[in-house]
């Protein structure tokens, strides 16, 4: 059986190394502000006012791979249920980084709230 004292101090040193790095890495970064801004839901504040209190609305975004933007839209617009489909009478258009291009012809713009947030209507779904 080896002496345990060095082993125990290895445990303490291992802990202190990680604690030390944790301390050094703890600082406010620009990344935090960039993360907070979309989660605050400010982009959707105007749209929320214009929508009914409850129900289901459709969604169209800039591309299939921007699912995070869709989740953030649902988070901001709750308690409305935002379905990832444009087949609803009212559809949220969410284009945070690129302007909308080639929107389906059955979608008509009702109102542009700025910052890439649109309220559209689907004439086929009425």
């Amino acid at each position, binding site marked *: *059986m*080896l002496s*345990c*004292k060095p*082993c*125990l*101090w*290895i*445990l*303490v*040193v*291992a*802990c*202190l*190394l*990680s*604690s*030390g*790095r*944790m*301390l050094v*890495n*703890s*600082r*406010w*970064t620009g990344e*935090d502000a960039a*993360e*907070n801004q979309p*989660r*605050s839901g400010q982009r959707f504040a105007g749209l929320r006012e214009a929508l009914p209190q*409850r129900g*289901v609305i459709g969604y169209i975004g800039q591309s299939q791979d921007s*699912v*995070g933007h869709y*989740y*953030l839209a*649902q*988070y901001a617009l*709750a*308690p409305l*249920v*935002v*379905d990832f489909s444009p087949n609803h009478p009212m559809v949220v258009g969410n284009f945070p980084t690129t302007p909308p291009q080639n929107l389906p012809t059955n979608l008509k713009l009702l109102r542009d709230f700025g910052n890439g947030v649109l309220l559209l209507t689907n004439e086929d779904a009425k």
Partner: protein
Amino acid sequence: MAIALAGILCVTTGFLVVALGLAPPSSRSTLLLRISLSAGFGLAVFSMTYFLARWSGFLHLWTIDGAVCAILLVALLSLRKHHASAVPDLKAPAQATSKCLLVAFGFALLAALYSGVLRALARPYGSGWDSFAIWNLHARFLFRSGIYWRDGFSPLIPWSHPDYPLLLPAALAHFWTVMGRETTAVPTTIGLIFTFITVGLLFSGLDILVSRTSALLGAMCLLSTPFFIDLGTWQYADVPLSFFILATLVLLHLHDGFAIRGIESRSPLALAGLAAGFAAWTKNEGVLFLLAILLARMWLTSRQSSPLRRPISQIAPMLLAVAPIFALIAFFKRAIAPPGDLFSDPATMLHKLGDLSRYGAVLKWYGRELVRFGDWWLIPLPIVMLVLYFLMRSNIGGREKETVRASAAALILTLAGYFFIYLITPRDIYWHLRFSLNRLFLHLWPSAIFLFFVALGSKPFANRVGDPEPSAP
């Protein structure tokens, strides 16, 4: 003002629940144990009362909270003499603590507090996707939807996992409702509370059961796990789950510690059952742990049965405490939430179970994550602890060893359950492993630290980092 009052009511509720099982604290460690358990149990009760209030439509929360407190107080006054068990210090006597170790612990605690609080303030909306896509979204639906709160469990948004249990979202919604508004202060504070009460529970549990040195080292191991502190501020349900898993084990070990010393009390078993039930109300993985701990305890009690300690008398208090929570979860899953996606396609599931490459992939990730899930710097703590375990001689007795084995078996069964889930996952297996395995390991990490130090006992640390040799029992 409302948040402070609600906070006091919440902790008081938890305090009364814990007081039903444990007598007034007799030392600073038992006080810390009581405070840690009270905060966690209080939040769990708050979430359940909110869910029931939403379901029944009677949302006068101050009245409900006051009534719950009053009922618990009456129950405590009438039952305490018969049921509550004092928490004696079960550790080896006359142990001093090394000053170096105290300084090291102080440094780890301050580093974790600084890092955790700074991170929580810097990211008031949480980090990662699950905070806004699952937990806080469910809380918003519960709070904002009024009588239409079931809208949040729509099958149109399956990615938000509407079948996930509601401990965290309903606790958040409870506070927002009594405050009358949403504020990020609530999830931020609850995240920090769960993080540090887990540390407090680990410290106090080890201090009562083993030694002050083990308590300091154990708490230090958790405080020095950067991913644990970080995840505590993400506003996820993983750290709350790790708290309830640890609470279950600490209470079971307290019960068994009493029993070994001839103090027969079933109230810690009932509290352990409550904690396991709360784990199941926190995340689906908690249901797995609940089943695993019940199986492990049945195995343990069947080995230790005697005319005085029949297995049923050991399991019944746990089952009785779990039953109402389990009924609530079953009601939620059957009547409100849409079915989950894991078991939706039995044929594909069976096909995946027959694919050996999936076993290899999961095993490989298990091995890899074991050394890196905590985001440690240079020296991974699980490796150090594994080496120490084989190098050090334990001085715990046969019955204590059996309790440790049962608890370890519960954790291993839970890990095996996670393994099975990865095998059958409907999502891409590598994606699933990449984004969840470190969190799943973290569920069990505080309990693994606890078991490591309980398994070693007090002897290895005596005369090693400054302690005198403990006297023989």
